[in-house]
């Protein structure tokens, strides 16, 4: 019910109300709390506040010429004006519920209708609640990729072995990345922040494109377009950054964040084209990447080989090309187990082929 009411009072009216309340001599702690709760709900509230501030600035300029009417005359005119001092004050401020109750007492004929409406709405919202309480889940198996368009128009592309939970609410869009990696293309809706939780990281977007890659030891958030705010991360991160396009934050299990700028976006989103792009990456890491996408395993047993860096682009399901690269390295030996898995050793390495 409160929500319906709030929509009826425009955000700019609410902003003007807050301006006036907080410009009082001593706003109370609860007023400040309510204001903060209100202003952080959606960007529109911030905009409305700034507009009121500009109006205030415009009428506070020294050059403003005010009417010369004396204060006494103003007061006399106001008190003399018929009926004006008893303007019916409709519930202007939504969170003052007593106004509504007064109305009900004054018009008992409306009570039954109101009660009926309330119970219908309660039933409706109850079923809504049950619907929302059961989030939608989407997941992919190893080697699969899948795109879903959510009811709000946002698109989520799931990478291999990934799983998300989606809850779309009236004032919020909540996504939980339970495992794996996903690219989010968020439909712009300033009134419904889009929050993605991935373990100890929560990021908020309004309308943007970003990738979250959740691994066992860390979570990487990369912004492709627009901006997102990190609104929660583990305990040890100090200030949480606002990320712009080409920024990446890697948060480890202890909540320590590491910020990188000018990330190569083509590499970050290459997976959506079923590509793996590597720029001077160690072979061990590349093998691990192939292992994310394929049931068969590539195991490089030689530490020196694991550290050797290469640059290249592969299709994520094309293990054979990568194996060909490995086999072409002088001194490397590849053993195929015949079931899609490979063990790679090198001359002088500690392990021998089984």
């Amino acid at each position, binding site marked *: 019910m409160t929500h319906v009411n709030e929509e009826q009072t425009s955000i*700019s009216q609410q902003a003007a109300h807050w301006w006036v309340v907080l410009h009082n001599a001593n706003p109370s702690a609860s007023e400040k709390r309510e204001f903060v709760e209100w*202003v952080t709900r959606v960007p529109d509230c911030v905009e409305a506040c700034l507009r009121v501030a500009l109006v205030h600035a415009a009428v506070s*300029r020294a050059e403003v010429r005010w009417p010369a009417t004396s204060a006494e005359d103003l007061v006399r*005119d106001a008190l003399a004006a018929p009926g004006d001092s008893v303007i019916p004050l409709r519930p202007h401020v939504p969170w003052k519920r007593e106004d509504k109750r007064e109305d009900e007492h004054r018009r008992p004929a409306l009570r039954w209708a109101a009660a009926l409406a309330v119970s219908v709405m309660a039933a409706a919202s109850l079923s809504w609640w049950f619907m929302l309480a059961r989030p939608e889940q989407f997941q992919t198996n190893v080697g699969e990729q899948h795109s879903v368009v959510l009811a709000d128009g946002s698109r989520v592309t799931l990478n291999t072995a990934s799983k998300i939970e989606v809850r779309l609410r009236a004032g919020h869009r909540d996504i939980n990345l339970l495992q794996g990696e996903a690219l989010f293309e968020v439909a712009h809706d300033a009134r419904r922040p889009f929050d993605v939780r991935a373990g100890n990281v929560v990021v908020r977007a309004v309308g943007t494109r970003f990738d979250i890659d959740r691994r066992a030891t860390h979570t990487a958030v990369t912004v492709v377009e627009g901006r997102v705010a990190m609104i929660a991360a583990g305990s040890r991160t100090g200030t949480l950054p606002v990320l712009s396009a080409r920024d990446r934050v890697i948060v480890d299990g202890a909540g320590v964040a590491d910020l990188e700028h000018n990330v190569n976006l083509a590499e970050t989103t290459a997976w959506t084209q079923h590509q793996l792009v590597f720029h001077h990456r160690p072979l061990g890491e590349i093998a691990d990447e192939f292992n994310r996408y394929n049931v068969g395993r590539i195991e490089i047993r030689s530490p020196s080989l694991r550290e050797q860096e290469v640059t290249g682009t592969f299709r994520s399901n094309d293990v054979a090309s990568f194996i060909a690269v490995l086999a072409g390295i002088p001194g490397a030996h590849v053993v195929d187990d015949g079931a899609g898995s490979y063990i790679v050793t090198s001359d002088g390495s500690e392990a021998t082929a089984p």
Partner: protein
Amino acid sequence: MQAWVVGDERAETYLRLLRTHDLSEVRNPQAYLLQVAKHVALEWCDRQPRSDSNVVLDDEMLVDGQLPELEVDALLSQQRLETVLASVSPMMRAVLLLRLRDERSYQEIAAELRITERQVRRYLARGYERLRLAIEG
């Protein structure tokens, strides 16, 4: 005239507010919001290609409400202010002038006009809304 804050900057301001952990602990959250917006606006101006003819905004200009846009619009907003004051009820005009011109407290205004402080706040909030609609044209 609000171009400097109401474009992408509002989203940026919003996002920055979100990362302030205990915003309600800030002594004056609204002033804090304006501060953040101002920083965003300044950074935003920094990003614009500058030429000699461009006015460079600095902190003081914004603090005093002396935005160049406001200067340009001063004449226009003066006219609009007069129109609004002429069109509102005597009660609202009294509240607006006693507050904005004479800088009286809500309590004093309420006593003078024999209304409650809450009514004073409502008149004032509606007055701001009228002014905004008029000034934004």
